[in-house]
């Protein structure tokens, strides 16, 4: 019976994470960036002080990991059109200048570190490739039409 006893706090921590944090974030792309930012670069484990305090560090880590994998899975499965819409929403909500964000994303490719561990390489490559394309499409849309200067 031990696994089910352990699962209850993880489920509760996950629901709490959805209700208190993730539901307040405007789009899946922003959710992914947020969840990836809770992961330690060196150890790969997730940390969230509030969630750990309400539940336990172990339950919080597991809940963040599950949420990260789910949001990633959803985003990686989006069509290019949906991903461009996600990018638009993300840029609209960002306090930074969209053109600046775009430039930084194209140079540094920070979305690469947003991939959960143990993701299938083809799925990871599809995601990276689609974000790269979405950025290029967004940039193309911002360029003035040469036919209508």
């Amino acid at each position, binding site marked *: 019976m031990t696994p089910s006893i352990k699962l209850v706090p993880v489920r509760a921590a996950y629901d709490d994470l959805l209700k208190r944090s993730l539901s307040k974030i405007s789009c899946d792309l922003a959710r992914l960036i947020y969840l990836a930012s809770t992961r330690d670069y060196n150890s790969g484990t997730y940390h969230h002080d509030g969630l750990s305090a309400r539940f336990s560090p172990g339950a919080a880590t597991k809940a963040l990991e599950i949420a990260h994998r789910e949001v990633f*899975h959803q985003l*990686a*499965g989006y*069509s*290019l*059109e949906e991903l461009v819409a996600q990018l638009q929403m993300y840029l609209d909500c960002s306090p930074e200048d969209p053109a600046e964000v775009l430039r930084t994303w194209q140079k540094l490719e920070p979305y690469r570190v947003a991939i959960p561990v*143990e*993701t*299938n*390489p*083809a*799925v*990871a*490559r*599809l995601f*990276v*490739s*689609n974000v*790269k*394309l979405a950025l*290029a*499409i967004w940039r*193309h*849309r911002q360029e003035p039409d040469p036919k209508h200067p």
Partner: protein
Amino acid sequence: MIGVPTALLIGTILLLALLFLATRGSAVAGSLSAKSDVSLLEDAGELAPCPPEFVARIFDSADWRFVARANSPQLESLFRRERKLVALLWVQQTSAAIQHIMRQHKEASRQSDDLNFSTETKIILLYSQLLLICGLLSVAIQASGPQHVRGLAVYADTLSHRLAEVEQGFRIATTGRQLHNAGSS
């Protein structure tokens, strides 16, 4: 009705084609690992499986139609290059996964003293078919892009799952028989 020499000739041609496509597939995989920044794992058994819905996505033509609407040759070329790399990576991964299954099968067969002819034939046929399809897919993706071979890719994915199931069934049966024999002796 065809004669024995004709059948032999056809068989040889098919075998050569199979070998050519399999070699071509691994050559593509080699160049892919150089081009792609995603590291290709040595042991395919360690790979997280690619969910079937992503296979359909990689080879879907809806994204291509969306990019084409932008009317930009640069975007179209970027899309073709990117999607081709993803599709080739998937083929390489599938090919590595089926080879991993066959290695496992070879090991399990060596320990089994009563091999079932029909199961062995089924596994070898599935494996050969998959190798041929992976080779064909590599060539077709490079020649015309992944969106034209969606059906074949989905079929290859289904076949690779079937191969894994048949091989797993074989191992369960072999282990069961070994346990039974150990218990009765």
